[in-house]
């Protein structure tokens, strides 16, 4: 037993050396979370110009006309269509021809005149959640300035804009992205890097030497996994720091729970990486398979960029097998809502089941000895 433990130790030390020695890769991996958070953050916060507005005005009067001309005159907005009923702009909206709909209620000017709240509805296309919230914020500002102007000439007016988001009704803010980015970075460091490092051994022939040695398959896998797990934890911490320092993204829940969940998610990614390396025959193939099989789903089918609710039904079912989908729910829950295990146990359970299944599959695939 004593000798086995030291065999594993020798193997882990070797893996650490590989990682430490490849300075370029290490630097990239360590800086990646910060760069990603900052880049995505700024890209998403970027000012939005040329918001295409569809207007629904059932009974045009002086007030709706005035407000419409405010929008028309604002360089940020462009009116792309006007209709009497909401059905008129529906198709425009659906085709993606409009980003924002401005829907007046009938008798808008009359309400302004008699002091009752004048209602209007703003519908934002939130398929990109961040631009969605920014657009409605700008539109609300335009409306508020018109309201203030009327108020200044001595009339008591109240315009009550109601906001509605299409495709992503629960959207809050740019903060939603940070948990998703953490998932993406973890996928990269775990699945992609293990797949590459293991398939490199396969390609160079060193894996054969390991398989002929008394090392057991689980020791080889564990030895590959431990160093990347440490790197993954470091990445979570730097991503959180970058998000907090640069964008003041809140952190409401338990850091311990987030780290534990990240380790769980990383282990899932690592087993995926081992599996990918086991079924591919070259480093290049392993890299492609890891990108297509893990990075793409983690980006596109995880709710990171496209809200899952906006995906077609069959694709929504596919997302159930994407680990990032569950991790993002956990990370958002902990960071933004501050919830604990009581609310997240289902997601944690799903990830645990995935881990067990993948790990068993990985260790099995890794027994080419008795093929």
């Amino acid at each position, binding site marked *: 037993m*004593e*000798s*086995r433990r*030291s*065999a594993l*130790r*020798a*193997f882990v*030390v*070797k893996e650490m*050396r*590989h990682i430490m*020695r*490849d300075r370029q890769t290490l630097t990239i991996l360590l800086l990646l979370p910060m760069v990603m958070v900052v880049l995505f953050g700024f890209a998403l916060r970027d000012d939005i110009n040329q918001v295409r507005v569809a207007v629904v005005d059932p009974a045009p009067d002086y007030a709706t006309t005035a407000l419409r001309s405010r929008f028309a005159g604002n360089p940020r907005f462009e009116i792309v269509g006007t209709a009497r009923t909401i059905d008129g702009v529906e198709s425009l909206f659906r085709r993606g021809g409009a980003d924002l709909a401005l829907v007046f209620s009938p008798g808008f000017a009359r309400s302004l005149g008699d002091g009752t709240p004048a209602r209007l509805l703003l519908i934002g296309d939130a398929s990109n959640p961040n631009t969605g919230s920014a657009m409605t914020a700008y539109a609300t500002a335009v409306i508020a300035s018109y309201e203030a102007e009327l108020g200044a000439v001595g009339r008591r007016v109240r315009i009550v804009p109601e906001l509605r988001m299409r495709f992503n009704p629960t959207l809050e803010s740019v903060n939603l992205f940070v948990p998703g980015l953490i998932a993406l970075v973890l996928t990269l460091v775990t699945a992609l890097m293990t797949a590459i490092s293991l398939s490199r051994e396969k390609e*160079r*022939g*060193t894996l*054969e*030497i*390991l*398989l*002929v*040695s*008394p*090392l057991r398959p689980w020791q080889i896998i564990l030895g590959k996994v431990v160093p990347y797990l440490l790197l993954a934890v470091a990445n979570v911490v730097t991503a959180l720091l970058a998000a907090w320092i640069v964008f003041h993204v809140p952190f409401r829940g338990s850091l311990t729970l987030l780290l534990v969940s990240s380790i769980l998610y990383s282990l899932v990614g690592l087993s995926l990486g081992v599996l990918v390396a086991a079924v591919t025959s070259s480093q290049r193939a392993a890299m492609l398979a890891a990108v297509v099989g893990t990075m793409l789903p983690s980006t596109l089918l995880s709710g990171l960029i496209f809200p899952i609710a906006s995906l077609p039904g069959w694709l929504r079912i596919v997302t159930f097998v994407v680990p990032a989908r569950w991790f993002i729910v956990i990370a958002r829950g902990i960071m933004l809502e501050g919830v604990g295990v009581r609310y997240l146990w289902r997601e944690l359970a799903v990830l645990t089941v995935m881990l067990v299944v993948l790990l068993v599959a990985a260790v099995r695939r890794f027994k*080419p*000895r*008795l*093929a």
Partner: protein
Amino acid sequence: MTTAIAVKDLTRRFGSFTAVDSISFDVQSGEVFGFLGANGAGKTTAIKMLIGLLAPTSGDASVAGFDVATQAEDVRRHIGYMSQRFSLYDDLTVRENITLYGGIYGLSDDVIRDRGDSLIRELQLDDSRDERVASLPLGWKQKLAFSVAMLHEPAVVFLDEPTGGVDPITRRQFWEMIYTVAERGTTVFVTTHYLDEAEYCDRISIMVDGRIAAMGTPTEVKQKFGAATLDEVFLHLVRPAEASHAQSA
């Protein structure tokens, strides 16, 4: 003298193709056994079964007294292996490679240090001990790989084309190393493409189409086929096989 490798009717089939067809042979302890054959004759498949990378379809084989099918774990602990592909880690130093292999085979730190030091001295690598293996010339790498495969003092060492691509002087030195370990009692099981190297072996076998077509000391084999060199024997055995392949193809 005891038997280090005992093979009886060992067979491996892949679907309908029989890669290794009921081969039998024994190798004694301390013997240098040359395992020859053309490419695709089944050498690699046979070795893979002996080192526990592949399960036999039928037949028995034992290495260092352990059954390869049922005691693979024990087999692995008592053998050394050096493949035709370079088997050290390029990005680790000489020292680190030694420490790694010693560790994997469960040697204590003291033993690793002692054996590592003498290994480095013997190979005259004192000045390069902290250099990355990538910077060593190929011949040195191969010699180092062999020494590392011997670090845990295995009963049997398998060398799969260890001298591929190295210059004649290094090959010569390599064979001197092989003799040294054989004299210490280690059994050496070696495959090679160089038939002049086969002459250095105590005994050889020549595989053709999954079967052993000739076996014995190099002199016996040459006598049996009335040939002056092993080259002639090899061509005599391999040609008819290739001719029949050409016909069937």
